[in-house]
């Protein structure tokens, strides 16, 4: 049962499946992590890049605008210098009207300058490029005047943001010192740069959403902001004026309250700073959008990966469970096959490849080597010749579509020489062209069932036989009853008739023949009664071995030279309850049968032994219950019995011998007697090899008295010549053989007249005479009477088939020494001859 053990151990397939599952999960997670990591890295890099780009952009803008502011201031300064120079050289000579016009003309070329004003040394406005209604103010308290007055070498000065006294507008004033010819302070020339106008410089520049341009003084005062935000102009925002420490610094923008990126550039030669800010949130918005998109992408990819992972896992599970189911199915199938003790085959028609399961190989019995092709199987299979044609026909019937399934019972011989019955069933798969493609099936050993079937058949046949025998027996019993009545009447009245016809010789002869015939009929009826179980006889304990020995002693002298007897008698004192005469007949008939089967010579094996049965056994004829048995076996090496005849050999009057050679009652007598004794018969025969009969008789006890005389010693003769007379030639020969075997010299005659002639020719030649009584020409007693006239004391033994009082009287008249009953027994004859020869002749 290896398959069952396989189920119990951990399944390597299951382990592999678990590992695969784990591997797939880990791989999937790694892929997702790698993707997420890559995305995070991208986002980080993108963040850095965005910062750098913003910073660069802001720096560039700041620098460019600072430069532009420088240029713008330089233009104002140039205007101031030029105006100062012009005023020094020509101011005094020019009328005030023209002077102001000239100032206006000069100022018109510099749009960022609202007006140019000239103040005297005390700070009073004296000329203005732009005329408007209003008084001329004194600016002596203003920073741009004080700076120029107090610092002769100060150059251009830029004021803080202030509100002009003339117009009340926010503006920055740039000033230069006016010196007289002696180099004394003679006032200032100031350019009013209105914040509105300054604003124009930056208005057109779009620095993007969330971004702003701030122009501040170095103290943080906001001068200009683009986009404009009027309410914060003039307020101090020192945080914006400080240059950042690091490239990517952020600053909390005090104007907006947002965190901003910032770039600050100094405006050369001035106390101005240009700061460009950009809302960090807005600056990073594209990056943030991109990052969100990337995150969504990553998430989607991760989800898809997870989904695929799940699908793969599910698929793996399905495959694994499918494999498990397949394996279980295979196991179940294998177990079922094993349980049913079936083997199976699978043949591929195209390649002739053949698969045999181990059990199938065992069933097929072709030995251990693996069969790989249908041709090899055909070549090697040891199929019973009687089954081959049927097998091929069944195969053809199925392959050619006449039968839906292949089914065949056939025998194969295994290596140990045993024949096994197999039942093979299968089905062929056909291709589109109706040609066999694949042939699959299974086989099972049905030897036991077949045997049981055969046993059953045999039992049924036995039952039929025994019923038949019983019917015949009953019939025979009835016939015997009536026949015996008839024979009794013939014999009885015949005898009475004989008594009353004493004088008439001719009538006596006729009556004698009638009686003679009736005697023969009587013998026949006796035989019929033998096999009829309705006959009733005496039963005593019979020592079986003694009976068999006696039979062999009687038989041996009559055997042809070519036949030899081998006996093995080991039953000891086993005895059966039987009529000894009948038991004797059983053994004699079997031996005679065996001898007759060996016309060409041979060995007659006679065996006798004790057997003990522990279970019921069925023989060819009859069944035996458990118990002690004595077994008589008689085996010949003769022609054997044809199977067709084997059934009928025990039937009365069934004989294969020529008419006249056998009565056909021998074996039916054996059967009747054995069955009557509660025994059974077994017959085995094969044509040409011989036949073996076994008689099983129940042991009834042990023989109490062993045979008084030695079984193998008989009185022997010493070459004395004996005359033997009987009208039946075979009986003469039988007697001759017995006598010769005892050491006498027999001279046989089958005619009493011829015997009388021979005796008259030489009366002293014969030591004794053995003669039959009933003979046609001259009866035995009449012949003896003639002999006695020549030799009155001649020893005579008379044999008679039917002894009666008349014969006894006649024998006494003639002076017969011994009267022997037929059939002739060797022992009786030997003893009788010994007795008559002892009396002086």
């Amino acid at each position, binding site marked *: 049962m290896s398959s069952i053990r396989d189920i119990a151990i951990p399944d390597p397939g299951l382990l592999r499946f678990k590992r695969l599952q784990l591997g797939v999960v880990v791989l999937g997670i790694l892929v997702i992590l790698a993707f997420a990591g890559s995305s995070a890295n991208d986002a980080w890099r993108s963040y850095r890049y965005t910062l750098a780009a913003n910073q660069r952009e802001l720096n560039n803008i700041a620098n460019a605008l600072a430069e532009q502011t420088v240029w713008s201031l330089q233009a104002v300064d140039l205007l101031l210098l030029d105006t100062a120079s012009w005023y020094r050289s020509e101011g005094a000579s020019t009328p005030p009207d023209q002077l102001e016009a000239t100032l206006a003309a000069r100022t018109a070329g510099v749009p960022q300058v609202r007006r140019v004003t000239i103040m005297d040394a005390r700070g009073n406005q004296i000329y203005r490029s732009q005329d408007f209604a209003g008084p001329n103010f004194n600016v002596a308290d203003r920073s741009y005047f004080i700076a120029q007055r107090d610092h002769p070498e100060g150059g251009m000065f830029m004021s803080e943001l202030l509100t002009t006294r003339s117009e009340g507008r926010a503006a920055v004033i740039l000033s230069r010192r006016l010196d007289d010819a002696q180099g004394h302070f003679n006032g200032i020339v100031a350019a009013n740069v209105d914040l509105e106008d300054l604003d124009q410089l930056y208005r057109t520049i779009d620095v993007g959403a969330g971004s702003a341009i701030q122009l501040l003084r170095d103290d943080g005062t906001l001068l200009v902001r683009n986009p404009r935000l009027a309410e914060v102009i003039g307020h101090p925002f020192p945080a914006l004026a400080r240059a950042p420490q690091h490239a990517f610094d952020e600053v909390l923008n005090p104007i907006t309250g947002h965190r901003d990126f910032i770039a600050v550039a100094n405006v050369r030669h001035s106390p101005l700073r240009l700061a460009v800010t950009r809302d960090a949130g807005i600056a990073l918005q594209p990056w943030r959008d991109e990052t969100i998109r990337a995150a969504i992408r990553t998430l989607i990819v991760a989800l898809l990966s997870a989904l695929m992972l799940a699908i793969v896992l599910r698929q793996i599970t399905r495959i694994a469970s499918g494999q498990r189911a397949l394996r279980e199915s295979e196991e179940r199938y294998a177990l079922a096959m094993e349980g049913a003790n079936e083997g199976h085959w699978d043949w591929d028609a195209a390649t002739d490849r053949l698969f045999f399961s181990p059990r199938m190989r065992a069933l097929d019995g072709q030995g251990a080597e693996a069969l790989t092709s249908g041709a090899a199987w055909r070549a090697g299979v040891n199929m019973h010749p009687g089954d081959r044609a049927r097998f091929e026909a069944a195969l053809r019937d199925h392959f050619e579509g006449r039968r839906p399934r292949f089914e065949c019972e056939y025998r194969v011989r295994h290596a140990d020489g045993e024949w096994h019955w197999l039942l093979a069933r299968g089905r062929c798969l056909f291709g589109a062209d109706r040609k066999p493609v694949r042939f699959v099936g299974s086989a099972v050993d049905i030897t036991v069932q077949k045997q049981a079937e055969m046993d059953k058949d045999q039992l049924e046949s036995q039952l039929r036989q025994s019923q038949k025998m019983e019917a015949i027996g009953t019939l025979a019993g009835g016939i015997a*009853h009536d*026949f*015996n*009545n008839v024979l009794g*009447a013939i014999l*009885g009245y015949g*005898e009475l008739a004989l008594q009353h016809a004493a004088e008439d010789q001719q009538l006596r002869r006729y009556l004698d023949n009638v009686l003679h015939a009736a005697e023969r009929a009587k013998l026949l009826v006796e035989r019929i009664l033998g096999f009829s179980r*309705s006959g009733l*006889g*005496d039963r005593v304990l019979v020592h079986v071995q003694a009976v068999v020995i006696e039979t062999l002693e009687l038989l041996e002298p009559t055997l042809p030279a070519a036949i030899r007897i081998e006996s093995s008698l080991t039953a000891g004192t086993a005895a059966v309850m039987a009529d000894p005469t009948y038991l004797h007949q059983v053994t004699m008939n079997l031996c005679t049968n065996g001898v007759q089967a060996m016309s060409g010579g041979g060995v007659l094996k006679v065996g006798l032994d004790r057997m003990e049965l522990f279970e019921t056994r069925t023989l060819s004829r009859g069944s035996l219950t458990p118990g002690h048995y004595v077994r008589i076996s008689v085996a010949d090496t003769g022609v054997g019995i044809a199977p067709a005849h084997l059934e009928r050999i025990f039937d009365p009057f069934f004989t294969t011998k020529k008419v006249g050679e056998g009565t056909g009652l021998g074996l039916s007598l054996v059967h009747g007697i054995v069955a009557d004794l509660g025994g059974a018969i077994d017959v085995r025969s094969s044509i040409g090899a011989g036949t073996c009969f076994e008689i099983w008789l129940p042991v009834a006890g042990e023989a109490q008295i062993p045979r008084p005389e030695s079984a193998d010693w008989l009185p022997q003769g010493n070459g004395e010549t004996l005359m033997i007379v009987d009208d039946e030639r075979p009986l003469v020969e039988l007697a001759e053989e017995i006598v010769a075997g005892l050491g006498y010299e027999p001279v046989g005659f089958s005619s009493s007249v011829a015997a009388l002639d021979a005796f008259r020719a030489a009366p002293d030649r014969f030591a004794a005479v053995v003669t039959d009584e009933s003979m046609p020409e001259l009866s035995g007693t009449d012949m003896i009477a003639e002999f006695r006239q020549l030799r009155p004391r001649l020893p005579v033994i008379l044999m008679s088939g039917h002894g009666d009082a008349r014969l006894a009287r006649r024998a006494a008249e003639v002076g017969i020494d011994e009267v022997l009953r037929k059939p002739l027994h060797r022992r009786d004859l030997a003893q009788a001859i010994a007795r008559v020869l002892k009396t002086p002749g």
Partner: protein
Amino acid sequence: MKAPAHVVIYEEDFLTRGLLEEWLREAGYRVRSGNTCDAGRDGPCDLLIVSVYMPKHTGPQCVRDIQAAHPGTPVIAISGQFRPGLAAAGTTAQALSVQQVVAKPLTRQKLLDCVHGILGTSS
């Protein structure tokens, strides 16, 4: 000399019955035939000779019936279904509860020997 013994013969077969009667009368016995269906009608006798048909089956019952009609009378059973060679007073006789058995076909000598043996007479 005492009166001749009285023998009753139960035998269906008339030839055999006739033969038996002839033998026994010649030997000096008084003989009469019995009827199996009405056994014992003719009163007591000294010996019964009963023919047994199917001694293994219905025969013994038939013998017992006749014995019951003649209590204490010795019986010689004769049958065509006794096997030859059986002893006159052997196991078969015991099995049938009779004094003697004689197999058919009968011989005069054997039958008369049996009759003499039982009745203590001699021929």
